């Protein structure tokens, strides 16, 4: 019998939850793969999930040129979703992005890990606000 054949139930539940939220939300799995972002997030990011599909979370984030308000690049280790995944804790950061539509936006992102069991992190949820 091979590897897991479908997403963990917690991720499916998280996607359903996010689908019904007006708050911009993105979800990545335990391997750091972006698996979903909702319609509210599409507005902030200037692009549709249907056009993005499942991609590496770090590459996806980098495509928005995340940077500090001073213009310094925000490396992966300072990005909330990566911190939540690597360190298994919640994280918050404010930064600037350039959306797919070319518009600069200031956002605040809070990310937290999803634990199916005490020792089983199945992914992360990142919620963000336009500032």
């Amino acid at each position, binding site marked *: *019998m091979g590897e897991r054949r*479908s997403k963990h139930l917690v991720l499916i539940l998280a996607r359903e939850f996010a689908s019904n939220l007006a708050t911009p939300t993105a979800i990545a799995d335990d391997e750091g793969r972006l698996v979903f972002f909702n319609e509210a997030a599409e507005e902030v990011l200037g692009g549709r999930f249907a056009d993005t599909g499942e991609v590496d979370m770090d590459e996806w984030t980098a495509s928005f040129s995340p940077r500090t308000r001073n213009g310094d690049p925000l490396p992966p280790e300072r990005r909330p979703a990566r911190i939540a995944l690597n360190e298994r804790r919640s994280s918050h950061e404010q930064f600037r992005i350039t959306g797919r539509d070319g518009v600069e936006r200031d956002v605040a992102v809070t990310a937290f890990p999803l634990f199916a069991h005490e020792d089983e992190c199945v992914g992360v949820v990142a919620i963000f606000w336009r500032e």
Partner: protein
Amino acid sequence: MRVKVWGCRGSLPTPGPETVRYGGNTSCIEVGLDDGSVLVFDAGTGIVELGGELARRDVQKVHLLLTHLHLDHLEGLRFFAPMWNPEVELNIWGPPSPVSSLRERIALSFSPPLFPIDLHDVPAQVRFLDVPREPWELDGASLYADLLMHTGPTLGYRIEADGFVLAYMPDHEPALLGITGRTRDWISGAGVAEEADVLLHDAQYSVEEYEQRIGWGHSSVDDAVLFADAVGARGLVLFHHEPRHDDQTLARLEERACELRGDRYEQPLLAREGLVVPVPTPAR
């Protein structure tokens, strides 16, 4: 592999003249492997008669795999004959909990005032085991379990043995999270049931009843068929019948399932006590 249904009623045992065809005992199936191993899934009241049968066969090693600990899947365990035989090795598998062990959770039903005998005093050699997160081997079978959409932590089991794949998902409401328009990997339980030769699946309600019970953790007959089609399960056995449904009602639901399933796959069956599930010739 030989699959026999010993109980397929949902929620509550329903003995009586109105339920003689499909039976009134709650969930329990027996999976016999070609090497003689016995796997039992769930311990509803159907397990009581199975216990007598296993005693007659002098089976001394049993694996009991629980989908979850709701009473209709556990209430027969106290009257399962192998529990009371010191010669029997009984391995009880169930969903892990971050709060308490499987033994602690099951012990609640083996203690006063619910039951006069404490779990410590059960004579069989009982072991309690958390179901692994990864596929594992059990005697002659390969097993895989995954959490399903139900109320509380609930597993579905995929059993591969003797060139045959069986999926057992007695309590499952995949429609709550979406079936239509989803790729398989986003459908609850798809990894358990995908391309199974036979899928035993929750079909507690008619579609009209389901509309009044969305979120209760169970499926309509229509959604059970939709799920089976979506995951490519070849055979479908509808399971966990609503306790208020008499034989006539269930027969109508079986007809409904056959209409919905069409000609693409084998015609679905409604589970009934004593049914030996037809095992098709392996396609692989």
